[in-house]
């Protein structure tokens, strides 16, 4: 009885195998198409591209992906687990053969390392490496070791032999928080740690997982890596400023600003510009793509953007609650404008003083002349 059931199951399975990878994975055609449509939106493509994406995914052989974690907080891994498009977690787990990922893999220790090295050896130049976390270069890289190897050496071996490396999160892309001043460990992003590697940067703290999926899908669909800006970020996700897509933008243009947390303007969703929002200097698709199944995003919820997808944002975008950075050499309580106004007033005072002396002197001069 059991045997017969099993046989039937096997036959059914065989039939399934002939359909698509997707249906076999238990993902309905409908969910799958929904996903493809969502992806074409994420990639900023017309909806008509959805069938093309679907075709690409159907035909593809699962490319191998290894996910390395260095000086990280696992935030990007967690983001991956929260992927919002339908069943995207399975799509990542299934479409790609995720051969190494410390946070979720079953194997540990030597066995885990073996899995990684096997991929590097056997699929040289074919696999995709994903890196999360920065790589410390100071003191021979002793500040981050995995399996007794330094992160730098591991990255050079794994990313150097990969088809391409996707740096997820701001740490992997640009060094992120470990690289914030004074950068105690000499942390850098992948591009700087592995010169010559092909790197796509997907910054964000953490990244929006939809952008990771979209990058992979872009590659599978068009057979090439997406076009990037000068900082290595795909244009489809980082091609426009938050400010230019922000739902609070009309209030900015109108001149309606939140002045205090919880005030009437805050409750009505007015612009967070004066609360230090860094939307005007941040390139990211948050207002469009949003997070957690498109539920919300920081500015939408009521807190300013902090510019987390920009290189060095920990130093250039802080203090988070002020419009401008502090002027170097002055205390944090001074804004650039206070200092500037002070300078202008001081100049006026200095020249007023000069004028008074000058006037007195002129009198003296004339007096002297009279005497003559």
């Amino acid at each position, binding site marked *: 009885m059991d045997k017969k059931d099993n046989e039937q199951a096997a036959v059914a399975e065989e039939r399934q195998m002939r359909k698509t990878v997707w249906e076999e994975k238990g993902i309905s055609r409908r969910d799958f198409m929904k996903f493809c449509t969502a992806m074409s939106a994420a990639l900023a493509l017309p909806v008509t591209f959805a069938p093309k994406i679907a075709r690409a995914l159907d035909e593809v052989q699962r490319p191998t992906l290894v996910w390395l974690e260095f000086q990280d907080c*696992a935030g990007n891994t967690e983001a991956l687990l929260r992927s919002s498009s339908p069943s995207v977690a399975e799509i990542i787990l299934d479409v790609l053969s995720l051969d*190494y990922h410390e946070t979720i893999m079953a*194997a*540990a220790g030597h066995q885990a390392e073996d899995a990684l090295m096997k991929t590097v050896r056997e699929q040289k130049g074919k696999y995709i490496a994903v890196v999360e976390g920065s790589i410390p270069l100071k003191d021979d890289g002793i500040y981050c070791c995995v399996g007794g190897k330094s992160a730098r050496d591991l990255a050079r071996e794994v990313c150097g032999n990969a088809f391409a490396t996707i740096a997820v999160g701001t740490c992997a892309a640009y060094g992120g928080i470990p690289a914030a001043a004074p950068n105690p*460990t000499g942390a850098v992003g992948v591009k700087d740690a592995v010169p010559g590697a092909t790197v796509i940067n997907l910054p964000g703290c953490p990244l929006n997982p939809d952008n990771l999926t979209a990058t992979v899908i872009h590659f599978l669909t068009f057979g090439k890596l997406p076009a990037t800006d000068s900082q290595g970020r795909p244009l489809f996700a980082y091609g426009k400023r938050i400010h230019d897509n922000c739902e609070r933008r009309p209030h900015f243009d109108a001149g309606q600003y939140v002045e205090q*947390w*919880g005030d009437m303007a805050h409750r*009505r969703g007015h612009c967070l510009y004066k609360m230090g929002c860094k939307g005007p200097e941040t390139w990211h698709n948050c207002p469009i793509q949003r997070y957690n199944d498109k539920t919300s995003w920081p500015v939408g*919820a009521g*807190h300013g953007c902090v510019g987390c997808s920009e290189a060095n944002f920990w130093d250039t975008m802080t203090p988070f609650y002020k419009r401008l950075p502090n002027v170097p050499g002055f205390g944090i309580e001074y804004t650039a404008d206070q200092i500037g106004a002070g300078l202008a007033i001081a100049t006026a005072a200095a020249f007023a003083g000069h004028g008074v002396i000058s006037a007195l002197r002129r009198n003296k001069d004339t007096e002297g002349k009279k005497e003559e």
Partner: protein
Amino acid sequence: MAKIVIDPVTRIEGHLRIEAEVSGSSVADAWSSSTMFRGIERILQGRDPRDAWYFTQRLCGVCTTVHSIASIRSVENALGIRIPPNAELIRNLIMGIQNVQDHVIHFYHLHALDWVDITSALKADPARTAELAASLSDWPLNSPTYFKGVQAKLSAFVSRGRLGPFANAYWGHPAYKLPPEANLMATAHYLEALEWQKDVIRIHAILGSKNPHPQTFLVGGMAIAVDPDSQTALNANKLEEIRLLLGKAREFVEKVYIPDLLAVASFYKEWAGIGGGVGNYLCYGEFPADNSGKPEVLWIPRGIILNRDLSRLHPVEQDKITEYVDHSWYEGKPGTALHPWDGETDYKYTGPKPPYEYLNTDEKYSWVKAPRYADLPMEVGPLARCLVAYASGHKEVKPVVDLVLSKLQVGPEALFSTLGRTAARGIETLVIAQKLPQWLDALVANIKGGDLSIHNNEKWDPDTWPAEAKGFGWHEAPRGSLGHWIRIKDQKIANYQAVVPSTWLASPRDAKGQRGPYEAALQGTPLADPKRPLEILRTVHSFDPCLACAVHLLDPTGNETVKVV
């Protein structure tokens, strides 16, 4: 004696390395080391204290709210800020669902594969699996067809020969004891939990804009405006969505997680006698009922249990917390433990040059410091919280603990173990999942009463601050007691120090050679096959390690120079 090394320890957050000496068929001694260092406390110096939470949040991306909570509390404590009731309740909701979601992820995705052999699930009979599941709960997905589908999915995955993240594990290890049907059920729930967790954590997105790393925390309150008459603020629509998600969270915990936990535990009862550890338990207490800041209003009580003595509950005094660096890669006076406010240390790696085989465990061997309370190592986490609540006769926790003990037919002493730790996590999840709707009700009642306040603006402007201030913020994170200590001078951070759960737990030895909780718990762990040390993973994972945040550095003066090896 043979020395074995597990590096990387996977299915955890961060970089953990375990070295263990094996004698016969059990672990004689163990060393726990963290091999990654970022120096975030140093980075914080000189910055705006109001920004600190955003930095410290990046200490850990798994327990993604906890370091922001502790940070804003430390600044609020230093400046004497009381936050509005709405903000307190919103924080309770955020912390509560964080616990629930995080514990479920831990159980299914980080810990379960130590107990569940996924490959054995292929041999299971779906009909009998459904029977088994139905005998445990009335979860709607308990049908033969459903389990058959899961099995088919799994076998298709395996038959393609590329196991992805499931490759190279200890499958078929003799320490796996579940029958195939239980394995199949657990595997099905592994996949379900993956979907469930991303759904329920949308509460963080509603209240906090996104997860991981929600972004609506503020010193003095929250940045999510409350207004029933606004599209953008927290209104009835969003509150209702939270209610639905809370219901979904609770149902899964009651009908899937707890039954699975009990079912799996019943096959591994010998683990109630393994992995006990240091026997001292610390809990700061959590979930304030109001904004008074007093310890009495904490729903999970504050307290300490020493030497597994549940009859006496000791108070927690913050000045008794100190840290040793005798076996950690920092400079410091040997044998001297320093309070987080007063410590003086400087990082200095003295370990072997990579690539290396073994660490020199007689000397310094970890980036984690060794925190001690009154010179004693402490275990923190769900078990500590459960024990403190149990010892205090907590009206919600005690009955659940008793129920679980009676179901497993063991006494309270069974709690001091690897199994006890895993069970306590489930108990806590259930109790919090049941409590969460009450905080939502309180929030709704407050809004109904016309209170729309979410932030106390009095001390927002740094000009209102004293020239110098110091404070501490405590929080019970999913992994245990978390404390942040801050010194503010001239409106800037003069010193910042976090003593985090995994520092307590992954602590190396102190000056007296007292082992940290992981190290102590691993002693005596049986090993069926030292080449495949599955049992070590069980005990280490029962603590839910989360290492990124455990490694940090302190510099009270803000002007000492970086010394380089």
